[in-house]
């Protein structure tokens, strides 16, 4: 009798275990299909920015996790929707990555049609349970380059730093708010080191465009005329114009290397200007975002909704040597520079950075640490009112 009872208990226990195992969510994860799709905008491969980074990050993730990456380029913006939809229709992808906010409407439409398909969109928000929207804490990255700019400007005796921005829209307020905070922090750090606050001021212009390169140049020239030492490009392609103005100013002095310097944005633009006219860049690490999203799908931790990537998870960063090499490869691939230019750019870049005293670099690294450990919270702004509040708090006028 006792034996029968214990056998019964044993059977019961095993049955419970089995049921439990089967019922436990997560362990019964669907098998992977083994493919990830990367849909990019008309900029295509070789844009030296988001698309190239997206390709690199996804390619690496695919290699690491044994997946196959299929990249889908678009001839026209009218292709975005069909390209995303075709990928979803094929039912053969574990994840469809859409690089850039231009694909927002396409992803929003298709995500509704295919609720079981996982999507990830970079730099935009699509409100759907099957879409992971990854955006970046531009304010944190901008704080770093702002601090750097303020200290470097003071070091070289410039009273101002500048920012050439695009259209006055909420995303750009993130940059401006962080940059202002960073400049203020940099001024204080300089005061701690040297005893006097340089109270480096900010000159900023919303050019109202993301495409008119001439306006970037004109705005930069105006700032340089008022003796701005570093100009932060916050308008994508306008950086070409910014750098033209800076290069002309440097060459007018009979020199090749800055100051004045440009500060690049989104991608690593340090290699432009022969490696010694762009001091640093505020990177949005699209490659890390793509890698993380793919990893999440593989590990079964994928979740729809908004993910904001800051300094702590390397979503944003100040440019450094490894990215310089990566982006030079992109530049070579796109035919912007040649392999022979590489050594020269690297040595110029190293030289440029060595000219800036190491305590400044350490101070920036210190700021980064404090932001990551949440000792410092960088202000942000999403509306004009919030932006005005930040402007009032950090006026940075002379």
């Amino acid at each position, binding site marked *: 009798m006792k034996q029968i009872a214990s056998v019964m208990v044993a059977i019961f226990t095993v049955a419970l275990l089995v049921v439990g195992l089967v019922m436990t969510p997560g362990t019964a994860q669907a098998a992977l299909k083994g493919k990830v*799709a990367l849909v990019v*905008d*008309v900029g*295509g491969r070789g844009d030296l920015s988001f698309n190239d980074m997206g390709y690199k990050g996804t390619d690496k993730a695919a290699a690491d996790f044994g997946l196959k990456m*299929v*990249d*889908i*380029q*678009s*001839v*026209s*913006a*009218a*292709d975005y*929707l*069909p*390209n995303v*939809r*075709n*990928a979803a*229709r*094929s039912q053969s992808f574990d994840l469809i990555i859409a690089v850039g*906010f*231009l694909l927002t*409407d*396409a992803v*929003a*439409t298709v995500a509704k*049609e295919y609720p079981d398909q996982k999507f990830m969109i970079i730099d935009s928000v699509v409100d759907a349970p099957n879409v992971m929207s990854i955006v970046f804490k531009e304010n944190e990255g901008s704080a770093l380059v702002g601090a750097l700019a303020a200290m470097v400007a003071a070091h070289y005796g410039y009273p101002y730093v500048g920012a050439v921005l*695009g*259209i006055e*829209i909420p995303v750009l307020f993130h940059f401006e708010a962080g940059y202002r905070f960073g400049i203020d922090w940099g001024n204080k750090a300089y005061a701690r080191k040297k005893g006097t606050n340089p109270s480096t001021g900010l000159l900023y212009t919303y050019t*109202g*465009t*993301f*495409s*008119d390169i001439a306006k970037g140049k004109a705005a930069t020239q105006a700032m340089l005329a008022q003796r701005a030492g570093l100009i932060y490009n916050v308008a994508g392609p306008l950086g070409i114009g910014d750098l033209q103005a800076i290069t002309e100013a440097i060459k007018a002095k009979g020199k090749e290397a800055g100051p004045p310097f440009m500060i690049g944005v989104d991608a690593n633009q340090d290699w432009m200007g022969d490696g010694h006219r762009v001091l640093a860049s505020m990177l949005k690490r699209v490659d890390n975002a793509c890698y993380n999203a793919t990893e999440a799908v593989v590990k079964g931790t994928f979740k729809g909704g908004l993910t904001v990537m800051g300094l702590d998870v390397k979503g944003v960063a100040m440019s450094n040597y490894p990215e310089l090499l990566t982006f030079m490869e992109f530049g070579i691939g796109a035919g912007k520079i040649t392999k022979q230019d590489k050594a020269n750019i690297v040595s110029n870049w190293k030289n440029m950075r060595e000219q800036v005293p190491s305590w400044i670099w350490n101070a920036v690294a210190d700021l980064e640490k404090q932001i990551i450990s949440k000792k410092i919270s960088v202000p942000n702004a999403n509306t004009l009112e919030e932006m005005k509040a930040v402007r009032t708090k950090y006026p940075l006028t002379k």
Partner: protein
Amino acid sequence: MRFSGRTDELKKTVIAAVFGFAVGALTMMVYGYDPISAYIALFNGAFGDPYGLSESLANATPFILTALTFAIGFRGGMFNIGAEGQLYLGALAAVTVSLFRFPSGISFALSIIFAVLAGAAWSLPVAVLKAARGVHEVISTIMLNWISRFLSFYLIAKILVDPLRAEKTISIAESVRFPLLVSGTSLSYGIFVSLFAAIIIYLFLWRTVSGFDIRAMGFNPVAATYAGIDKWKITLIVFITGGFTAGLAGAVHVMGRPPTYAIYSGMPSIQGLGFEGLAVAMIGRNHPIGIIFAAIFFGGLLAGGRMMQLSSQVPLEMVRVVEGIVVLFLAIPELIQVFSFLREIRIPFIFQFKRSQNKHGRR
């Protein structure tokens, strides 16, 4: 212009297509891609199922209209490549109407009417310059295309910009859009506008006196003028009608193409629709009914090309090469005619341009 039978035309087209696809296949093989799987993906993506067919028809919608612009000109002995610029303004005109809040029916009608008029207005200087100063239409349309482009950039960035999403214009209001014909695809009721326009242009060219005059002028301008046909009237009709269809193409595209129903800055969604209409007109032998089939074929190439990337991993650049080869071969029979036609008007154009500048009068 030779009047060869329809079966003859069909035969030529089929032979050209076979050669085009064969050369495309060879090219893919040379670069290490599998042409069989690529072509299977292409044809499945283009016409393999209702979805593919819908995408092909959606692509064909603006091409039919811009091809008509070229074909009308060609039938009248003129080389009108202005559809591109006229299309931009047609699209912008349609968006402009959405700035105002009319009842949706009125807004819809106004969008179409404004677009058509904008296309015609941009075509008018071409006709006037040709009639008054003998400026060749190739020169003036190329120039006007560029002016239109930069004017559009300005309007998109300054006037029509969406205040919340600066990368695009405001969107056409939902009630003013062409509804989708097949849900879950890009195909809207706009296709019927295109088909209707093609039939109207066919009837106009072949069933009206003005249409006869246009074709007579294209067939032999000297004889036509001798017969009392007013050359400048014909010029005006040709360009205005061409402007109508090009402007309409812009409206139908921006009002019927999901998901954004707006124009992005830099115009990546509408750029090239006018120029590709030229290729479509060539493949369609510059006949409105031929153009319908050519546009569907061309639209199918584009829809299938997307699938080549997706299912057989042929990169976009190679897809474009193959598409280009096929289109080029298909256009060869008509290109031969165009070149003989160009010889008749004494190309290079620049000579004519200079002559008009020297005030030696028109031809």
